[in-house]
């Protein structure tokens, strides 16, 4: 097998897509996407083949059918009744929440915005993703490509910018913060690095009575959120408010404290969390590199020195090398520092660039040319040994079997420049961790960390954020932080680390009268609203002026109305159904079919509209009086509730599925629920 088949890219890493029928879910689990752990397609392909082979051997008894939609395990039996008591079933229907690494309950906070309950909406976010104001401006938003509205209508709901609205319009939320016990539990935790991962761990542990100390090498906390994200995207006051809120909860912050030996700190604490990020920018070893060193800067280091106001200027002509989000931040910062000719060069075609679409767009909107298929060859120096330009070679992308190859064309171009910024990737680096203290590293010098517990091979040491598995984004660091905090709490309480708290779930009927629901099902059919931007001319002259202005209240309320309320679940009880077909007739998206049971493959084909999206489940009822079953394709359901409204017997009901991912902050609640 060759090419990109069965592979898809997520967070710059290649994953294998495996689809499994519902009947096998209990056995195999839900998310059968497996990561190859590789960013390079060539390396990912053999790993994919291995994963597929293992998968086939593991389930040899069943027919395995590989087609373009993924590796599909075909059930050979009739479909089973869907088990909606499994919290993951309805969780998966809420596409945005399921896609979010921290599983923030998006529809709930959008409804709170619609009710102008901004404080509540903010707190819901804060509990789940810790940095709503920061993430509302900078998140990589995995929720948006997942948004159901992108399938049923046109574009997803502007989830990320609505999160920002909760920050922008909230009042004082201090009274709602968790209480910090005055009497501590006697356990001391050391956190290395004051980035999003460590801060999340601190926030999750402080309310439980832990004594937390954070070590930060710079003079202010925030990690990459402060050093690498320019303030025209993330104003300092937003960052400070949300970062210091956690410090104020009682963490001891030690700034300007670079830890040069883990061994020295490990004994002072009951557990240590490493959240030091991926601080080493990649260099470009081509001719002229050493000679022109003075005018060549590593992108992330350069952004850091601007954040701390060490660097205040740059040459007039600047080349930025790289196609990721850091490159976008570098070029936009360079323009604001006074450069008047900034160009971005990237080896690959524009369509393959790693930068998020919206960040690329913003750079282009600011008038920055992106030269794609342009591979750096040499730094050129003038007679005095100063950088005067760069030589590039044009590349050509050729695709065979979906696999890309960049072929040099031999065409060379020279671009004049005063400075070059390198933004071609970054690595994590642990020169400060001794090799003999029990932490195992793999062949790429990355620590071996358990995917569930975040624990390293040293039981007291936990990793998270970019430090664990390389560069991701803030929301992943938060998710890692939650998991690490659970592990640390278990570890300090001598509970098995794999004995993890379950999510909090609640399924409540929304019926108020005969045809009344306690949610607003009259969703807006309008297109996605654009976020207002500051005047470009002014913005380009001011390094600190925020470019995106955010939604005003009117726009926010309009955009909130676009949310389909996917957490309002359609729950079916076959014993009440009289098979009158009213739900089939009213459903605007033809999701419901009454049919004879069969294997999932056949059932999917014989629905009113065949269910081709294997990522989405079928909701299957038990046997009805006529021997048929009700099958609902979750893929296109718009959660309008009309099926339940037109149901004469209440066989359909609309129930709100409140799914709260477990983290230490709601630990008390989980326990209370168990007791109840």
């Amino acid at each position, binding site marked *: 097998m060759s090419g990109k088949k069965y592979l898809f890219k997520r967070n710059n890493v290649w994953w294998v897509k495996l689809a499994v029928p519902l009947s096998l879910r209990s056995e195999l689990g839900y998310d059968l996407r497996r990561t190859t752990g590789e960013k390079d397609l060539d390396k990912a392909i053999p790993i994919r083949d291995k994963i597929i082979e293992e998968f086939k051997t593991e389930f040899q008894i069943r027919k395995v059918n590989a087609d373009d939609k993924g590796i599909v395990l075909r059930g050979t039996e009739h479909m089973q009744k869907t088990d909606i008591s499994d919290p993951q079933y309805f969780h998966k229907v809420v596409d945005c929440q399921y896609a979010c690494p921290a599983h923030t309950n998006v529809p709930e906070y959008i409804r709170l915005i619609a009710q102008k309950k901004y404080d509540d909406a903010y707190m819901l976010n804060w509990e789940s993703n810790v940095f709503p104001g920061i993430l509302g401006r900078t998140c990589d938003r995995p929720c948006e490509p997942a948004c159901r509205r992108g399938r049923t209508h046109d574009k997803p709901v502007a989830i990320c910018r609505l999160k920002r609205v909760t920050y922008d319009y909230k009042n004082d939320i201090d009274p709602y913060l968790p209480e910090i016990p005055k009497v501590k539990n006697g356990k001391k935790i050391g956190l290395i690095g004051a980035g999003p991962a460590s801060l999340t761990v601190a926030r999750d542990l402080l309310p439980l009575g832990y004594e937390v100390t954070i070590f930060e090498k710079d003079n202010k906390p925030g990690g990459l959120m402060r050093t690498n994200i320019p303030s025209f995207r993330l104003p300092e006051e937003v960052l400070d408010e949300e970062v210091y809120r956690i410090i104020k909860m009682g963490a001891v912050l030690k700034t300007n404290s670079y830890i040069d030996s883990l061994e020295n700190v490990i004994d002072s604490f009951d557990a240590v969390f490493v959240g030091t990020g991926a601080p080493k920018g990649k260099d470009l070893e081509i001719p002229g590199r050493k000679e022109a060193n003075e005018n060549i800067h590593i992108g992330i280091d350069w952004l850091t020195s601007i954040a701390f106001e060490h660097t205040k200027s740059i040459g007039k002509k600047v080349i930025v090398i790289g196609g990721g989000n850091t490159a976008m931040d570098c070029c936009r910062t360079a323009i604001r520092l006074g450069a008047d000719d900034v160009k971005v060069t990237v080896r690959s075609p524009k369509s393959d660039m790693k930068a998020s679409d919206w960040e690329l767009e913003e750079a282009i909107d600011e008038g920055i040319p992106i030269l794609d298929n342009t591979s750096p060859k040499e730094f050129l120096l003038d007679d005095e040994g100063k950088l005067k330009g760069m030589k590039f070679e044009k590349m050509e992308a050729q695709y065979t079997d979906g696999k890309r190859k960049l072929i040099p064309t031999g065409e060379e171009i020279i671009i004049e420049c005063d400075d070059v910024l390198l933004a071609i990737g970054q690595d994590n680096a642990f020169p400060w961790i001794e090799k003999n203290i029990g932490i195992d590293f793999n062949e790429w010098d990355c620590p071996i960390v358990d995917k569930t517990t975040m624990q390293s091979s040293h039981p007291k040491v936990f990793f998270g954020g970019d430090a664990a598995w390389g560069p991701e984004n803030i929301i992943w660091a938060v998710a890692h932080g939650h998991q690490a905090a659970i592990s640390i709490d278990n570890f300090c309480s001598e509970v098995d680390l794999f004995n993890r708290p379950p999510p909090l779930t609640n399924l409540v009927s929304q019926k108020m009268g005969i045809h009344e629901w306690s949610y607003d099902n009259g969703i807006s059919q309008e297109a996605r609203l654009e976020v207002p931007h500051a005047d470009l001319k002014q913005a380009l002259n001011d390094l600190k002026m925020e470019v995106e202005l955010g939604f005003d209240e009117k726009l926010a309320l309009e955009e909130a109305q676009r949310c389909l309320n996917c957490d309002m679940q359609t729950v079916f009880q076959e014993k009440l159904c*009289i098979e009158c077909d009213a739900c089939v007739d009213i459903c605007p998206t033809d999701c419901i079919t009454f049919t004879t049971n069969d294997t999932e493959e056949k059932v999917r084909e014989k629905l009113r509209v065949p269910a081709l999206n294997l990522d989405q489940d079928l909701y299957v009822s038990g046997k009805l009086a006529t021997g048929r079953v009700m099958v609902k394709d979750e893929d296109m359901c718009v959660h309008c509730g009309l099926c339940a409204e037109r149901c004469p017997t209440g066989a359909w009901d609309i129930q709100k599925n409140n799914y709260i991912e477990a983290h230490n902050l709601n630990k008390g609640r989980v326990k209370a629920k168990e007791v109840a």
Partner: protein
Amino acid sequence: MSYFKPINKHPNLEKNKLGLTRRDYEGGVSTLCAGCGHDSISACIIEACFRLNIEAYKVAKLSGIGCSSKAPAYFLNASHGFNSVHGRMPSIATGANCANEDLLYLGVSGDGDSASIGIGQFIHAIRRQVNMVYFVENNGTYGLTKGQFSATNDLESKNKYGEDNLFPPIDLTSMAIQMGASYVARSFSGDRDQLVPLIMGAIQHKGFALLDIISPCVTFNNHDSSTKSYDYIRNHNEAMGKTDFVPLGEEIKTNYDEGSSVEVKLHDGSRLSLEKTDHNFDPTDAGNSLELIRKKNKEGKIITGLLYVDNKCKPLTEIMDLPDKPLNTLEQEELCPGSEVLEEINKGLS
């Protein structure tokens, strides 16, 4: 309560030859009781019109008074419509049919509208062979006036409050056959696989087509002692063999064993292919059909399917030798034969 259905539809929804989807044939959101059989019938009409590639503006929906007669508001939004006085829909249909042969007439009526107040109108529309599809959405009760017995309610069927029914029912299908209807079928709102081809056949048939569709009233006549409840009909339904509608120029896809199916050619060349059940039933023999209906009624079974079809009948407009063109498109020259003709006539009189 929602009065609007979201406008977005499934992106992979099937399209017909006109490039329309099923949803383009919809009407307003129904205000009938949730679960009403009438809504299922509306959905089947939508499906049949979608599959026959019918242009909605070439359809006229006619109705009288009753729950059933509200139904035309819930399908084919882009069609013509006339909501007449109680029981008088057949007269309106007859007039419209004479004035404009080009439209497809869908008359939607109920058991009260057709079997009680309008029974005289009903019979004469049949007798005159009006070219229309006449739907009787038959639930055996006056739903709109709180559930009194209608004239089609079975003798043994009590009302919701336990009262006995004193009078025997009218069987509209046998009556229609006797009066000369040329396409008679009975079906059940809960069996769309059977109903949709029957509607398609009725639409393509030229002449009076009666569809007597048992349509449970969820509010007043869906209880244990009713003979028109979902459960009762499912348990007592004796469906005739399957009917397939085969549009003009298409191959018959279902294969029955030789001699086990009957094929009926409709006026436009499309065909109905009927699966034969055990007996030597011939749907083109009226006596045969009446006998079968009588026999099954006696056994307490509800016979459904295509009961009678006469594909050689002459519709009203042919009997009366009316112009093929709609009256409102006739030009002055066609309407007035001129002074010369008048003179000829006058000469003949002198």
